[in-house]
């Protein structure tokens, strides 16, 4: 059974618990693009055809074992904040929200207890995807592959004996597979080794982007690395290759960090503690500022310069510190200024909680605790 229009609640946040290499790799994602036979692709389809596609996918998901007990949402029936929440959780792309003539037919199917699901009527009829914490590309691929087998057995897919799975954009054709890792590499940025690494990445057929995918800026030293080509190689080869290159990037990052620790320990410590201090004390915090400071804190946690917060908390803040999540928590739409204030409060509370749990002196790495989170500001 699949549940329709359930509250979003905590759905699709399983990845934040982390996984292998979680201090450096936030998450691994695999998606495959698929289209149904006999329908024009969504960009060329009319509202009725898109609705027909959704209905078929909804019915197929009902019989797909890996979606058992899962959820189904039609984007048109979600309010603006919920739509944005799905984008902020990386469960749908912003493109899925693009306005269309008539009902959009855009929808999301999500498994009950993982971040595995199907985005319907984006650029392709189906984007099957799985998002997992840490470096775990094989696990993400396994989930997607299983779902693909189930859906493919229930719905006739567009396939060409030579070109493989057919997609709206020729850059996705063949396997339709895009695997990516979201990686945090401040050491390479601080040691200015990053351009060499990114150049290397491009030379081996991979590409990089910012946190929010194509066209997005790199903020907070978070990079998304993914395969560039989809045709001519097997899915396993594409995933192996990305996994191996990611492993290399992790090694370089570790190397860069140990150089920093040896050659500029005080600079590094200062950077980490300043970032922590601001996050722990600020009364107004912009999104980008928060991302950049979280990067410093994450580095500090990873190097054990900070006892708290936990990596999981940092992941959670990255998600819940975004506008729509803050709006949902506040129960109201927020102006930029209001959002910055709410964000600062939220972050302070989260860090304070982890601090208490870990018994870390607030914003002071050495001894006497100074009270950083002062008396209530009165509003």
């Amino acid at each position, binding site marked *: 059974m699949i549940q329709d229009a359930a509250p979003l609640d905590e759905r699709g946040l399983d990845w934040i618990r982390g996984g292998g290499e979680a201090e450096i790799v936030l998450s691994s994602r695999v998606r495959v693009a698929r*289209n149904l*036979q006999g*329908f*024009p*692709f969504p*960009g*060329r389809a009319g509202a009725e055809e898109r609705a027909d596609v959704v209905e078929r996918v909804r019915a197929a998901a009902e019989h797909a074992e890996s979606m058992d007990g899962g959820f189904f949402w039609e984007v048109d029936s979600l309010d603006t904040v919920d739509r944005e929440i799905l984008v902020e959780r990386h469960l749908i792309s912003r493109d899925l929200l693009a306005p269309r003539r008539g009902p959009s037919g855009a929808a999301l199917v999500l498994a009950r207890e993982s971040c595995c699901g199907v985005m319907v009527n984006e*650029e392709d009829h189906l984007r099957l995807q799985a998002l997992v914490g840490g470096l775990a590309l*094989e696990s993400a691929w*396994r989930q997607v*592959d*299983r779902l*693909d*087998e189930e859906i*493919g057995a229930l719905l*006739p*897919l*567009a*396939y*060409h*004996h*030579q*070109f*493989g*799975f*057919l997609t*709206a*954009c*020729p*850059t996705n*054709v*063949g*396997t339709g*597979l895009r695997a990516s890792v979201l990686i945090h590499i401040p050491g390479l940025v601080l040691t200015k080794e990053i351009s060499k690494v990114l150049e290397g990445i*491009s030379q081996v057929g991979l590409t990089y982007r910012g946190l929010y995918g194509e066209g997005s800026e790199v903020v907070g030293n978070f990079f998304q690395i993914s395969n560039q*080509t*989809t*045709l*001519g*190689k*097997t*899915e*396993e*080869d594409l995933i192996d290759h990305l996994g191996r290159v990611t492993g290399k990037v992790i090694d370089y990052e570790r190397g860069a960090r140990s150089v920093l620790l040896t050659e500029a320990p005080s600079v590094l410590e200062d950077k980490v503690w300043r970032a922590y201090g601001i996050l722990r004390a600020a009364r107004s915090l912009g999104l980008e500022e928060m991302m950049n400071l979280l990067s410093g804190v994450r580095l500090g946690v990873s190097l054990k310069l900070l006892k708290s917060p936990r990596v999981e908390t940092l992941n959670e803040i990255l998600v819940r510190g975004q506008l729509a999540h803050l709006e949902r928590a506040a129960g109201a739409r927020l102006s930029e200024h209001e959002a910055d204030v709410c964000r600062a409060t939220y972050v302070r509370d989260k860090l304070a909680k982890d601090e208490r749990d870990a018994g870390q002196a607030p914003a002071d790495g050495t001894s006497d605790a100074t009270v950083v989170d002062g008396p209530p500001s009165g509003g």
Partner: protein
Amino acid sequence: MLCEDCREREAEVHLTSIEAEEMRSVHLCVGCANQRGISAETAETVAGAPPLADFLAQLGSSGPQTPIPDASEPCPFCGISAADFRKAGRVGCSQCYVHFETQLRGLLRRIHGSSQHAGKLYLSEASDITDRLGRISSMRRRLKRAIETEDFETAAELRDRIHAMETRE
């Protein structure tokens, strides 16, 4: 490198194009490039790693750098024309891959370095025994690999899938 046209000035414009599915590089000085109607700006973009839109725009422009002629008729299923495709960088339906096959094969080779799918095989209801045997052998390859990499979860799943297909024969 000297300009291929005048063979006097240094070539500064490097253009890669596809003609009859062959990749061809042209090296020209700015003057001769202008005579051919190629701007240095366009050519540089193309000589580097062109984003798809630039590459497609190149297909659409007239003159000597037009590597692929327009397919004359729009796709009979979705009605998209070669010009629409170039503009949007997206085809309209799966039939487009049959209708524009020649052009797409060149494009795919350029984008992916290959035009032959090597991944999972998909069987529709219309598939025959050869297709099914092909798929079984592809799954056997994946099974072998899964065992080699000690990915036993995948191996178990593939074993079940192979068994299910074999008993259906």
